[in-house]
C-alpha cells in the first residue's frame, strides 16, 4: 500500500526556492564550461571579457581542437589525423580504438568517393593488421569493406556508415580524446546538472508532492497535482 506523501504547496516551495543561495560566479563558470567544452571559442573569449570569468582551459587549444573536429566532419580524415598528432602525438598512440575508428572513417571516405582500388589497398595494408589484434576491430572492418559489395549503398543495411552521423560520431570521439588529453572533462557540466535535476525531482517525487519543473526550456514551476 502506498504511504501518503507529504504535500508541499506552491507558496511553501517558492519560499524554499528563494532561500537557496546560488552564486553568480558559479553560474558564470557553468556557462563558460559549456562554451569551452562545446568549442565556442569566440563566444568564450567574449564571455571572458563581458563577465570576467576565466575559462578552465587555454582558449587557443579550443581552436586546434575544433579544427580537428571540423576536418573529420568534412571527411578530411588524413588532415584530422595530422592535426591531432601536431597537437599531441600521444593521443592516438594511447587510444588504439580511436585510431582505428579514424582509419575506418578514412576507408569510408575512400569508398564514398568511389576510389575502390585505393580503398582495398588501404583496408588490407592499414586496417587488416589491426583487426588481427582485436576481434571487434575485425568485425567493424569487415562491415565497412562490405560497403564495396553493394552497387547502391543507399539501400543496403550497412549504408548508415556512409551517413553524416558516422562522421559526427567519429568527430565527437576525437573531440573527447583531445579534451581528455588536456585534463579536461569531455562533456560539459550543464547537461549533467539538468539530468541531475530530473533525477532529484523523481527521487523527491517518491516521498512528496511538490511543484515540479517539467519543461527545461521554460523552467516553469508547475502546480503540484494533488
Amino acid at each position: 500500500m502506498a504511504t501518503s506523501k507529504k504535500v508541499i504547496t506552491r507558496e511553501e516551495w517558492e519560499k524554499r526556492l528563494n532561500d537557496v543561495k546560488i552564486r553568480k560566479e558559479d553560474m558564470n563558470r557553468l556557462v563558460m564550461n559549456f562554451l569551452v567544452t562545446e568549442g565556442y571559442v569566440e563566444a568564450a573569449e567574449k564571455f571572458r571579457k563581458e563577465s570576467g570569468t576565466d575559462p578552465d582551459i587555454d582558449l587557443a587549444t579550443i581552436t586546434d581542437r575544433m579544427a580537428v573536429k571540423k576536418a573529420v566532419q568534412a571527411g578530411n580524415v588524413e588532415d584530422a589525423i595530422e592535426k591531432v598528432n601536431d597537437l599531441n602525438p600521444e593521443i592516438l598512440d594511447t587510444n588504439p580504438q580511436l585510431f582505428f575508428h579514424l582509419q575506418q572513417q578514412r576507408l569510408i571516405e575512400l569508398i564514398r568517393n568511389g576510389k575502390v582500388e585505393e580503398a582495398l589497398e588501404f583496408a588490407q595494408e592499414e586496417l587488416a593488421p589491426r583487426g588481427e589484434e582485436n576481434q571487434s576491430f575485425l568485425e567493424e572492418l569487415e562491415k565497412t569493406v562490405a560497403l564495396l559489395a553493394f552497387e547502391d549503398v543507399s539501400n543496403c543495411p550497412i549504408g548508415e556508415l556512409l551517413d553524416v552521423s558516422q562522421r559526427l560520431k567519429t568527430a565527437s570521439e576525437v573531440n573527447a580524446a583531445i579534451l581528455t588529453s588536456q585534463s579536461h572533462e569531455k562533456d560539459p557540466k550543464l547537461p549533467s546538472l539538468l539530468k541531475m535535476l530530473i533525477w532529484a525531482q523523481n527521487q523527491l517525487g517518491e516521498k512528496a508532492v511538490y511543484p515540479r519543473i517539467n519543461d527545461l526550456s521554460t523552467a516553469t514551476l508547475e502546480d503540484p497535482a494533488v
Partner: protein
Amino acid sequence: MDASLTLSLSHTNSDTHDLIGSYFLQQWRLKSRAAAAKYESVGVAGSQLLMEVESEESEEDKEELPTELDTLNSSGGFSIVGSNKLSVHYPNVNLHGHDVGVVQANRPAPSKRLVYYFEMYVNNAGTKGQVAIGFTTSGFKLRRQPGWESNSYGYHGDDGLLYRGQGKGEAFGPVYSTGDTVGGGINYASQELFFTKNGAVVGTVFKDVKGPLFPTVAVHSQNEAVTINFGKNPFVFDLKAYEAQERAKQNSTIEKLSIPQDASYGIVRSYLQHYGYEDTLRTFDVESRSTLPPISFVQENGFTEDMNMYSLNQRKVLRQLIRSGQIGDAFGKLREWYPQIVQGGASAICFLLHCQNFIELVRVGKLEEAVLYGRTEFEKFYKLGDYDDLVKDCAALLAYEQPQKSSVGYLLGDSQREIVADAVNAMVLSTNPSVKYSRECLHSRLDRLLRQLSACFLEKRALNGDQGEALHLHRILNSGRKG
C-alpha cells in the same frame, strides 16, 4: 524631495523595485558576513585569502563532529580512557559478558553528508583479542559489546564477525589484532554501514537504525588497548577515493537519463540574454549557426524571446560601465534612459550605485574626494536606517592603509561590481511593461533550474531523517580538474 513623497510617486513600481533592491542588498550582506567570518577565522596574517572564494559548505550543513571519546557516560569503569580522550585500555581480567569496556564518541556521527568514517588502531590485542569497532545509539548499555544489543552494530576482532542486535554474529570480514587498523563508516546514500581493515573495505551491512549513531569502540580482555582517529590524523583508508567512487555510482544512474538534446544550448542562450551579455550572445549565435550538425534549436516562442531581448544593448552598456568602475557614467545613462529607476535618489538601486562610486574613489586612492562624496550621499541613506550596516562597511575602507587586506576588502573585489551591475540589469528588465512577475527579472532560467535542483536535494534529505548531502555546486564545478 522627502522619502514619503518619493514613495508615492513611484508607487506603481515600488513593490517590484523594493523586491529587486532588497534582493541585491541581501546578496551584499551575505558577502559582508562571509568576509567578516572569514577574516575572524584567518586573522590578519591570512587576510589575503579573503579575496578567494568563501567556504563552500553552507551554514546549515555544518554539524558538530565527534572529536573525542565520551568520558562522562562511558563504560561502567571497566576500561580506562587515556588523558587525550582518544585511547582506551582494559586493565583487568574480564569475568563475564557484562563487563565490556565500551566507549562512545562524544557526539553522534554527522549525517548531512555522503559518508561518515572513523578509525581505530589496535595497540594491543590483550589476552583474548576481544576488541570491537561499531556504531551504537545514545541509549546503548555501556557494558556490552557493540552489536550484542539491539540498535547496535559491531565488527569484532577475535572472530571477524559482524554483530547486529544479538549475541550471534554473521560471517563478515577477517579477524584483526595487534598492529591492525580497522575503520567504521556510514554511507548515507546507500544506507549501509561499512567496515575496513588496513585500508580496504571488508564488508557492508544495511543500516536499519534511522536515528543518530555514535562511533563506538570496545575492549574486553586484559591489556587490550586501542587508539581512535576521528579524522585529526590522516586515515589509513582512502576516504576521498571511496566517496568519489560512490558519487560515480550515482552519476552513472543519472547519466542514463535523457534530456532534450539542445536543452543546455537554450539555457545558455537565455542566460546571456538575461544578464545582457550581448557580445557573447551575438558571437554564440554566429558560431552555433556554423556548427555541424547545425543546432536545430527551435527559437523560443516569440514572447519569451522578446522578454529576454528587452533593451539588451542598453543593459550591456550599463554593465560594461559598472564593471569598469565608471559609475558616474552609468548613473548618467540611467537618468537618460530609465529615469524612473533613479527617480528620487533614495532607492536601494541609488544606494548601491552611490556606494560603488565611493568604493571606486577609494580604489584609485582619491580618499578626500571619497570622504566628500560619502558626506553628501550617504547621510540620507543612513537616516533611512535600512542601510547603516552597509554604509559602515563602505566607510570602514577609509580606515585602512591597505583596505584590500582589511575585513571590508571584499568591497574592492569584482564581485561587488557584479552585484551592482546585476541589480541595475534587473531593474531595467523590470521596466518592461510585459513583465508579470518581478521574480522573472531576478532569476535567469539557469538560476531557477539550479534553485529547483538544490531545493529538491534539501527536501529529499529532510524527508530522509536529515541524512545525505546537499547539492554542492562548487564541488561539481571543481570536479574533473586535474593538477
